[in-house]
């Protein structure tokens, strides 16, 4: 019975390893449509390394729990210190993690770098439970907003007398992006914390009330994708959904103008 317990423990962990490996054969991440391929690479490398550690440690656990079982006349080894061994595995772990960290920080810096000068400016303002998308129009400048005058007809409180506001184009839950051109998105919120999540673009940024947070990325393929809200924002959180439409860069203005009508 005791033997069986050990075997079972080993088997359970082994089976999990096998099941996990088989399931991972599938391509789980949503197809990548932006320039943030670094995130996918980081995930893939981490998967391989942590997967190896997972398999090795679980095999050891399985082997030990099966092999070193109590039996008549046996006594465990008396062995409780080996500084050289301990320093070795500590430093090796630290070394491997340092490599990870080096890559991670580099990637992090890249993603959070200032946007290129030619980036297309778009503002996305979250509210319960919709995404207000605003394009600056021909002048390239977003008009002033005043939240005090926000209303049903003017959800983001656009100051209509502001000359810069005249040509602003507002869309609801529809985001048009140019293919192969950097996009600079100013993320804002009217009420609570939302999170602007584009699963296919590896983009996620909390929309924090009182703050304007800028992110940038480059859409790489045309097509229609989802905007999701990733931060619990109230009862309608689950249906705070929008669409991204990536169009050829030359057709962006036309597509936005058509969508506004």
């Amino acid at each position: 019975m005791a033997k069986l317990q050990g075997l079972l423990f080993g088997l359970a962990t082994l089976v999990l390893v096998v099941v996990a490996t088989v399931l991972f054969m599938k391509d789980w991440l949503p197809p990548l449509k932006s320039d943030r391929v670094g995130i996918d690479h980081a995930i893939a490398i981490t998967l391989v390394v942590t997967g190896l550690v997972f398999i090795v440690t679980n095999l050891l656990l399985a082997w030990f729990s099966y092999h070193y079982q109590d039996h008549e006349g046996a006594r465990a080894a008396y062995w409780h210190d080996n500084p050289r061994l301990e320093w070795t595995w500590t430093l090796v772990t630290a070394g491997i993690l340092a490599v990870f960290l080096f890559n991670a920080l580099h990637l992090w810096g890249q993603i959070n770098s200032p946007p290129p000068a030619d980036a297309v400016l778009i503002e996305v303002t979250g509210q319960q439970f919709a995404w207000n998308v605003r394009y600056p129009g021909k002048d390239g400048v977003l008009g002033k907003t005043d939240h005090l005058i926000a209303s049903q007809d003017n959800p983001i409180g656009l100051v209509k007398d502001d000359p810069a506001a005249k040509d602003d184009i507002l869309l609801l839950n529809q985001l048009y992006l140019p293919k192969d051109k950097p996009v600079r998105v100013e993320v804002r919120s009217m009420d609570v914390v939302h999170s602007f999540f584009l699963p296919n673009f590896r983009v996620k940024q909390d929309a924090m009330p009182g703050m304007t947070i800028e992110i940038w990325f480059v859409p790489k393929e045309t097509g229609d994708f989802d905007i999701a809200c990733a931060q619990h924002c109230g009862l309608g959180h689950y249906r705070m959904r929008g669409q991204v439409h990536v169009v050829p860069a030359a057709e962006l203005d036309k597509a936005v103008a058509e969508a506004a009508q």
Partner: protein
Amino acid sequence: MAHTEAHAAEAHAHAPQAFIWRYVFSKDHKVIGVQYYVTAMFMALVAGLLAMLIRLQLAWPEKDWSALQKIIPGGFDSGVMRPEFYTMLFTMHGTLMVFFVLSTAPVSGFGNLLIPLQVGTRDMAFPFLNGLSFWTFLCGCVVILTSFFVGAGAAGAGWTSYPPLSALRGAVPGSDIGQTFWIAGMVLFIASFTMGGLNFVTTIVNMRTKGMSMLRLPLTMWAMLLVAILGLLSFPALTGASLMLLLDRHFGTSFFLPAGLVLNNVPVVGANGQFLHKGGSPLLWQHLFWFLGHPEVYILMLPALGFTSDILTTFCRKALFGYKAMVGAMLAIGGLSFIVWGHHMFVSGMSPYLGMAFAVGTILIAVPSAVKVFNWLATLWRSRIQYRTPMLWAMGVVSLFISGGLSGIWLGQGAPDIQLHDTFFVIAHFHLIMAGAALFGVFGATAMWFPKMFGRTMNETLGKLHFWFTFVAYYGTFFPMHYIGLAGHMRRIYDPYQYPYLKNLQPLNQFITVSAIVLGVSQILFFVNFFWSAFKGQKASENPWNANGLEWTTASPPPHGNWPGAIPEVHRWPYEYSNPSAPTDHVMQHEPPMAVEAGH
């Protein structure tokens, strides 16, 4: 010696006789420990049922649950679960589990039970404070449970209670009066935890028996000491933040609320037509919350790591490998836990430079965690394992600690977290490592120290069945969450299938739900075993597992005052197993020095 024994006799005379003073308003650490434990178990039942309802909704969101509606009329609308009920479910599941179950059972429950027994003293340093701590905790439980029945229901802004959602009363129904109850419950909980923490620190530092130097403490005691220090230093941040949130909610202050809030297209203005709030920072709450929140996850986990080391050595009859490294690793984890909170906020909009610093700290914390795993594996190597129930749970902790720890490296790097943040990947990660390790640790500790609670041992067959069902169902529930998280499944979502790209995850969600129900139902085995064994189980001897700690030198259960005679003195560490020069395979901490030991 003579007066110590005279004193012990006096201690017996001091044991209160009336039932109410002995078992209800007791100041005895063992009674208080069991009170905490049983209360936490009740809270676990509530929080577990909430989890089952969450899973039902995620697997079959459109199904007609008229039968459930008869039991919980407020939660359903013509058989379909209401979103406001769902927000309440996940908020309260998290709050209850993190604070009222998994901080309480291992820390307040087993901490109180074990500290005086393992360090060798007759009670905690401040027994009255200890009793007060439990009753404060119970008040907290009552307040937080009452919140389900007030106003528009319990809090609904998530267990993290991010403002403005938790501050604006119209933002979500739970932010009506339920959130105020949440704050009150949390403040009571923190007060109780502080009283307990003061007792833990003082008892472990000052009241060790003769010979019990810090480096002879069982690792469980090191864990309890660290947990108490972490609690004392980190919980005040949440106390302060909760008070500020309360003022923002009810008195119009603007600690966390910026100007320009517009709810449902109506600006949140005061009588003068100006914004009611201005200048506050929602990020500030997140910083304060996670300054507590991250040490808090180690408050849950460290005791489990301590139990695991103690159980593992006992049942594989082998000395713990690398005791000093284990202590060092715990100290490092505890210390680093104060500088990593920002990894919960990578996409919150805080400065990217801060994000970098937090990524460094987070990846750093993986080193001591890995050391712990390696040392456990080295302990198992060339041991001789006895598969008793506590051992199975300890092995379970090791397994979960590996599985959950590795996914931490995914998230901690920062950039991958942009995709994985607030998805089920995170849910998988913390349920495996934090909740799972803590839960399995508590089950292991229960089986291990049951004799010291009730003087009986738990039923082995039921215990093993319970373990295997729980182990397999636990993995079945939480491991697949990695996949749906990678696929972009957001957390806290009432109906994921509103999103076309999540539609094909429904079968996997249903698999998870079935596993979760198996997991939930198999806990019946535990409850049956617990109560049956407490009253009818096999009577336990002083030291049923042939373990080495001081708690095994006294009767099961120990009398009031713990040792009828003098408190034993300590001559060695608690992991002296299978020493070839010793006549038996274990030498207890209090046994007089052997000839070989006298030499050095």
